[in-house]
């Protein structure tokens, strides 16, 4: 028994070095050498500054921008969390109603039946970077008016930014809100000049 314990300790130390240090060192090296962009967090640059990460959603509240989903984490990427409200919790229903009321207020003329579920519900991570195409299209009139752009131009921008499916067939259709808004900013600039 004591012999086995001593063996266990020695084997453990060796395996810990192998699995805890050598393994991460190898994959870290390969990743940094061959896929540095992804390995460093897919940071998005704009005019030489880091303005976010491609994977991570952000909070947009101005009428000039497209808005993402509500977030239980308030898009604080260092504190990812869900609301964890159960399906039978009145707080959940209240929250969805409030989100819906806000969307209807910000986008006059819209009916509840045009609002997709994803735009009024919070995600599991609180950092969901995506919205559905329907959620983007319904914001087009507001965004166009706030930026002084023709509706057709903004609509075309949304269509261009719908994510292509992986290998052309795999994945749910969606838009990345940060990328969409960056494209919008560029569009506003080029139109203004």
């Amino acid at each position, binding site marked *: 028994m004591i012999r086995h314990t001593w063996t*266990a300790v020695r*084997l*453990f130390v060796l395996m810990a070095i192998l699995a805890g240090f050598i393994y991460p060192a190898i994959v870290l090296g390969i990743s940094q050498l061959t896929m540095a962009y*992804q390995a460093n*967090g897919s940071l998005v640059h704009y005019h030489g500054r880091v303005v976010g990460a491609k994977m991570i959603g952000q909070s947009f509240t101005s009428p000039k921008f497209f808005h993402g989903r509500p977030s239980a984490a308030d898009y604080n*990427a260092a504190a990812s969390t869900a609301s964890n409200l159960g399906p039978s919790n009145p707080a959940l229903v209240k929250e969805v109603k409030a989100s819906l009321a806000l969307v209807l207020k910000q986008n006059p003329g819209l009916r509840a039946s045009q609002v*997709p579920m994803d735009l009024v519900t919070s995600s599991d991570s609180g950092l969901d970077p*995506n919205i559905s195409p329907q959620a983007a299209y319904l914001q087009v009139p507001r965004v166009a008016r706030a930026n002084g752009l023709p509706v057709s131009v903004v609509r075309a921008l949304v269509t261009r930014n719908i994510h292509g499916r992986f290998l052309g067939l795999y994945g*749910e259709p969606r838009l990345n809100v940060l990328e969409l808004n*960056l494209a919008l900013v560029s569009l506003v600039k080029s139109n203004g000049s």
Partner: protein
Amino acid sequence: MSFTTAVTWLVGLGVLFVAVKPVGGYLARVFTAQPTVLDRVWGRPERWLFRVSGVDPNYDMSAWEFAAALVVTNVVLLAAVYVLLRLQVSLPFNPQHFPDVRSSIALNTAVSFATNTNWQAYAGEHTLSNFSQFAALGFAQFIAPASGVAAGVAFVRALSGRKLGNFFVDLTRACTRILLPLAVLVTLVLVWQGVPETLAGYAHAHLITGGRQIIPRGPIASFDAIAHLGQNGGGFTHANSANPLENPTAVSNLLYAIVMGLLPVGLFGFFGIMTGRMRTAWTLTAVAGVLFLGMLVLYYVPEAAGNPVINSLGLHGTANWIGQELRFGTGGSALFTTSSMAFSTGSVATAQDSLLPLASLGSFFGMFVNMVFGGKGVGLLNMMMFVILTVFLIGLMVGRTPEFLGKKIETREVSLALLAFLVHPFLILGGTALAVYLPAARHGVTNAGAHGLSEILYAFTSAAANNGSAFAGLHAALPFYTAAISMVMLIGRYVPLVAMLLLGESLLRKRTVPETVGTLRTDGVLFGGVLLTSVIIVNALAFFPVIALGPLAEHYLLMAHHLFS
């Protein structure tokens, strides 16, 4: 059902089905020391590892010795993780300067990672340094599942008439021949899909709206690769595999769902090849496969139909998006969750607490039975336990001595199988009852009424099944829960493991009875059907009452638009 859902399910299930035999064959070569492709890489270092640590690869252990070696190694692991977490400040790679982890959380985490549960009472992104993540939790994520594999392998050896083998050899080979090489491959695919792998600190973004955002980074891909390969299931961040940093695309989501299942299904093939009973192995695979499909559908249908109270607001579409990530879709989330609950991983891509009650029932079921392929090694052991109980029940019904693989199943075997089985409902129901009774624990729930009971029940089920997922609304960092959950994880892990090892040895010592026309066949549709029925009945007897008070009560009241405030 969308096209993407169909592709996700077909590819996921297809790959796992095809993997049963080849992965099983590879495992058989690894664990009978036959030549494999990796010998050129590992042959020499492995001999060196054995020599330095004093392992004699030719020494065969008895069941007690094997169990003791397993437990001792796990205790060393537990102690090492605890110490490293407590010393976090003094250790390198702590770019965010996180303080030492406090003792109750460090102990809970050490138990959790040593028992392959990976229950998390902390939020990784504002608690743990990179060192704690890749080193302390990193090696635990290899050694804990490798211990489970070793136990499963030893049991199968006993069934096939071989000696149990040497725990240290099996542990090492499970790491070097299976987990490490696969983890390297999976990490690289994850990085390609966008999972960070860096030692740089958190990035600071200056947003175009004028605000700022901190982007957590770290060696996330290497952490998540082994988290899923080893059915560990802990997350680098609080949101686990729902966090876009850990699971950025529908492709990474599908990869995770497959990777979790690769070795559990392979172990079923391994059983068939080692015992020469491939037909029995396929029967057991079919039984687990039917249950897997049942769980998948049970998740998908209610989630696609949505919450009746929310749907009465008259929005576009019906599917439940609360606590769900858009990029996976309902079908992708369904496959991930079902895999995680069937294979006992416990990582989550959706908020379990916000699932509709019937959908959460699938998760409960997976953890109750814990043999829908199940965790590494342990899932196969649980399946064998149910097989032995079923054979015994059939024996009672037809009035003949029960046999399995030519060995008589007698008092000792049935007692050990029953012990392994009963520990599980005892821990789950006892723990839940105690928590409901104690006001301090009862107040740890976020949601009221039937759903609150489900939160508590889920915590104890997850701990006993060494799953690790949670209805995360529960305040798991409360002293009662860190202590009670730690106890449940330990007992739930080691008691059934030791009982099954003893059972295996007991079968090995018996004389083989020649098969006759009168022998009960343990393959084919009839046996599979009886096995499936017994699994369902035995578990329903144990768990139906509490399920009726929790998820079922909530479901029916929700259908009537009744909420709990």
